């Protein structure tokens, strides 16, 4: 049997090579990273004009350089495009179908049309589909697109009576339509915690909250898309309430929601009471007071009270994402006994 070696300093050579506690700071300015290699340019034609954009850009970015305002709903600059809403579609010569501008990369010689009859029809229909099946009352952007494209969501008939809580039965089963009404995703609001409210009757299934909860921001995976087809919905496992789920209340899902389906409880209560006045609110940027990361907070202030906290999407540190403290931890300011709570 092998003899056991005695444990000495030599058994752990890395201890000797560890840096000393006082690391010397090199003199001179902080070195800058080497300049990025210039990206090749790609030339394409958008609505008859030649556009030159860096290789790897999306059609959406290329359209932007031409001053074209492309509608988007499921797109957000701090998330990977999932191209599911299809409101950004454009016509690409040579392609059988329209292509999503948000995710399609530019190629040399592409000929793109962004505002012809075919594109306008698809965009109008997508917006009508959403507005006729989802409550878009807190989605001003979607409403403005609807107006731009002349959508008439009411032409599909009056809304069918709400079906109540969506059930997790087998996928691929539905009741036959009555030939009069239009099916919607209307359902009761979910209020199961003090921080935020989930009103899935306003959900357009843009997948952004799932991305933000999952690997693109929080890595918590408390919610996912469940069901299939029109019965698809955002859900926890077995639809358990949020407090029983993996949710850590970072609120990043609220931060990315484009329709107000996910909302601060405080905002929801104020809206219910008719006190929510967005036009009167001031936005002030500050730094989160909690930890050393130094996230930028945008405080939304109404009547000298903070009513919600967000972070700018283009902020280097946060990319718009926060944690529970930065997102919700400002209520102590409104506490009755400030000394006690600070």
């Amino acid at each position: 049997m092998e003899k056991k070696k005695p444990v000495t300093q030599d058994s752990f050579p890395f201890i000797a090579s560890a840096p000393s506690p006082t690391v010397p700071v090199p003199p001179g300015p902080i070195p800058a990273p080497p300049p990025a290699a210039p990206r090749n340019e790609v030339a394409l034609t958008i609505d008859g004009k030649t556009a030159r954009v860096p290789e790897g850009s999306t059609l959406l970015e290329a359209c932007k350089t031409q001053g074209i305002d492309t509608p988007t709903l499921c797109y957000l600059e701090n998330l990977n495009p999932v191209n599911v809403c299809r409101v950004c579609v454009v016509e690409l010569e040579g392609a059988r179908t329209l292509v999503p501008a948000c995710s399609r990369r530019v190629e040399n010689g592409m000929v793109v049309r962004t505002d012809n009859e075919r594109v306008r029809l698809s965009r109008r229909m997508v917006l009508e589909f959403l507005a006729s099946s989802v409550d878009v009352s807190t989605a001003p952007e979607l409403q403005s697109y609807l107006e731009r494209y002349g959508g008439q969501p009411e032409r599909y008939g009056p809304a069918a009576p709400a079906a109540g809580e969506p059930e997790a039965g087998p996928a691929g089963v539905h009741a036959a339509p009555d030939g009069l009404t239009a099916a919607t995703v209307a359902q009761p609001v979910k209020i199961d915690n003090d921080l935020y409210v989930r009103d899935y009757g306003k959900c357009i299934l843009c997948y952004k909250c799932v991305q933000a909860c999952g690997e693109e921001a929080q890595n918590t995976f408390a919610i996912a898309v469940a069901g299939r087809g029109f019965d698809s919905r955002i859900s926890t496992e077995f639809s358990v309430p949020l407090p029983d789920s993996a949710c850590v209340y970072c609120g990043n899902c609220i931060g990315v929601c484009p329709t107000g389906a996910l909302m601060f409880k405080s905002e929801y209560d104020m809206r219910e009471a008719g006190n929510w006045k967005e036009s009167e609110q001031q936005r002030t940027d500050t730094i989160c007071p909690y930890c050393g990361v130094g996230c930028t907070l945008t405080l939304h202030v109404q009547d000298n009270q903070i009513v919600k906290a967000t972070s700018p999407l283009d902020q280097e540190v946060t990319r718009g994402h926060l944690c529970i403290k930065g997102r919700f931890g400002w209520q102590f300011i409104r506490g009755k006994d400030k000394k006690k709570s600070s």
Partner: protein
Amino acid sequence: MDLHIAGQPPERDERAAVDSVLGPLQLGKAESYHLQQERPARSQRHLLLPVLHAINSRIGWISPGALNYACRRLNLPPAEAFGVADFYGLFSMTPRPRVLIHVCDDIACLTGGAPAICEHLAGRLGPAGAAKPSDKLTWLRSPCLGLCDRAPAALVSAAGRKSWECALAPTSADALLAAAEQPERRPESPAVAASLSVPQQGQQGLHLLRRVGRLQPESLEDHLAEGGYEALRRAVDLGPERVIREVIDSRLVGRGGAAFPAGRKWEAVYRARSSQPTRYLVCNADESEPGTFKDRVIMEEDPFLLIESMTIAGLATGCEQGFLYIRGEYPLAFERLSHAVRQARKQGFLGKRILNLDLSFDIEIRRGAGAYICGEETALFNSIEGYRGEPRNKPPFPTEVGLFGRPTLVNNVETLVNVPGIVLWGGRSFAGIGTPRSTGTKLFCLSGHVARPGVYEVPFGASLAGLLDLAGGVAGNGRLQGVLVGGAAGTFLSPRELDTPMTFEGTRAIGAALGSAVVMPFDDSVDLSKILLRIAAFFRDESCGQCVPCRVGTVRQEEALSRLFGGHAEGVGQAPLQLAEIGQVMSDASICGLGHTASSAIQSALARWAEFSDLRQGSDPED
């Protein structure tokens, strides 16, 4: 990722179900379950669907205890696993009886006796799916089960320790109830002669169906005696590049519906070898297009032919791993293929040293779980990988970024089984069969009102009328109203168009598509509005829900149709325009082929509606 898994520990049955796929949990030093895995837990997500199948067939539904235990074993967030399980039609996330009768009420069975069965079962058991979990059995309506040649069809399943599934066709309500009464014993499948599905059986000139009925599907010896593995030996002699050359020369195009040149895919996957050594072969056997059953017949009657074809494809393109994704509603084909793979492995035709040479290729069979969309190639990848069967955006195409992100060759069953012939006779002689642009022979699925329904093999070039004649002409009352070509995603043609050549170019010329080669005639007594409503309902049920045009469009399409046919005063006038616009946005802006074709059959029928109405009114009223 920190997993948050709440709830009770699994019951014994729940644990056993999961362990049957993942192996027993070895509790050891580490407390955390997932530290026990041999491989990094993340790489095992692809086992989620097999695990869900095991849970469903043992427990009867996907119970929280079992799902949570599966999540622990696979290191998966329960919300994600729930979202995946809830995607599939064969799984239930709520308790239900252990014995299920899935009655097909899709287009072929709708005119083939399904309504009577449904009515009878509703009388005995209450409305579809309405049973309490404590009840012994329940019945459900099902989309096409791929048994259209023997309508009406049903799938009976019993969950438990000795679970079984059995497709019964043709069947009756009494036969179904009798089968369901004895969940402890799998019903004897009534001996179905192969000739029932293949009326041409034994005839001269068949190529793909030549061996059907001549061999025992379970017997590798029969396969070898009937020329089996000759093509593989020849392919090995030729070498990958020559084999791919022959496939290109054969001008074989995909038989799954999209009609893409097979050789180009093979070449692309082969070429990717320098940058991507790991590549995959996927056989798409998720045949779910209503009215389609050709692949089922091949898989049930000649499973070794498919296994050999896959082996040739895998070796030629350099894929060492093949996946065969078969729809969950084909229990017999699954059984026979699994058996064939085991046999082939045992005899050295699959595995590490094929034919005792330094050649390696193996096949893993995966079962779908009731989702038409998983026949879309990228949805199929997601399904195998353990994600929801949602199609991916293309580009990139599967030959660049496919299964597990690797270059992947995806071919349909019928496409693949053409390969041995191409290898043996040479691509050029194969290209001499059929027409210049549609080479080879084609399997057609004839059902509905034909005298002898079944799979028919003909060289490309036959007309629609010729196919109907081959199947004994129009049955029912004998007076043809219209023919659905290509399935629910296909086109209705009128009797005026019977001389259409059933080739890729011939159907394209009249704005139709061959699709999955469904040919389903309806006599003039059939109320086509019911068929159209069923097709609209089908697409609503089967849309994955990812993109707006298809998710909402399929709903609005069904509503507009029922407004049109229901004769409701308001909105009837608007319905045709609405349907046209809905169709356009779905085909222009959807992500995948399901959305692109979800309005095709409906639009084509409405375009010919006056003709169909005239034919219906010319006939004597039934009742």
